[in-house]
């Protein structure tokens, strides 16, 4: 449960300490029946290794791709996923919910 989130952030810290590029993705808002609550984290390193979850699996692939961009550019990014938009039909949230995910680099 929550302990697992702690392990996720510890992993992010240990990656950053050995100068690996790391991005932190955080669910900041949810509408409808989103699977993971606001505050849920997913961490990604420059190798594409990731831990944690922002949606229980539905959009993780897309978030990881965006996170890799954030690691190289350094600029934070806001992502939105939901059944209402184009992207969502490809990666979408089957539950019908909508989520907003903030992706930032650990510097």
């Amino acid at each position: 449960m929550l302990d697992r989130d702690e392990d996720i952030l510890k992993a992010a810290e240990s990656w950053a300490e050995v100068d690996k590029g790391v991005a932190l993705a955080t669910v900041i808002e949810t509408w409808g029946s989103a699977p993971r609550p606001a505050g849920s984290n997913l961490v990604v390193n420059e190798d594409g290794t990731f831990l944690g979850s922002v949606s229980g699996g539905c959009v993780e692939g897309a978030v990881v791709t965006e996170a890799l961009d954030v690691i190289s550019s350094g600029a934070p990014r806001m992502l939105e996923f939901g059944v209402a938009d184009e992207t969502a039909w490809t990666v979408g949230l089957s539950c019908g919910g909508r989520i907003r995910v903030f992706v930032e680099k650990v510097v």
Partner: protein
Amino acid sequence: MKLATLSAINTERAARRPVIVVTDIGNGEQRLVRAADIARDPLHIELERHLRMGKSSVIEVEGRELFLNVYAPTAKLVIIGAVHISQALAPLARSLGYDVTVVDPRSAFASPERFPDVRLIAEWPDVALPPLNIDHYTAFVAVTHDPKIDDPALLHALERDCFYIGALGSRNTHGQRAVRLRAEGVSEASIERIHAPIGLEIGAISPSEIAVAIMAEITAQLRLPKASTA
């Protein structure tokens, strides 16, 4: 996020101290607020509310969108007494996200067959409790009905800052317990902290219903603003 912020989150969490990260979504600016600093923070009303609810969310302040990410410790529930009520209470508490420990020196009661998948300590409270590091994010219930076990356990809990202390027994039983605790030097204010009879009044009869009443009372203590939980 600065690595220093990430490290501070991990340090606070390891110490079971809550922390809130405030992110300005517009410009990515971020600051970390430790629990001890909330009261003097300009956003203290919102921070306190979010911490109490254990809920992260976006708020709007002076036209800016701020994301308050609450990192609260996992609440613990320590149950004194591996009795019938505890068999219903332990799984219910786990389903509510509590980290549950059951303590009972009587090994016939504290058996893994009766408590599958629950941390069990078959020791007296004076041995079992100190290593548990009972802190503010701990709810503590004594349900053995046996003063030899419940009383020393309650004495230990009352020395700690746990957010909830409850003890099984009727008003009469609790009256007798209060007399014994006073004789041990416990203050009236401390005795007042004990919820007894335990649980919200919902007419609970069966062990499972009593477990619901107990968890309802614990939830109210955890989530409601302090003024209305008296």
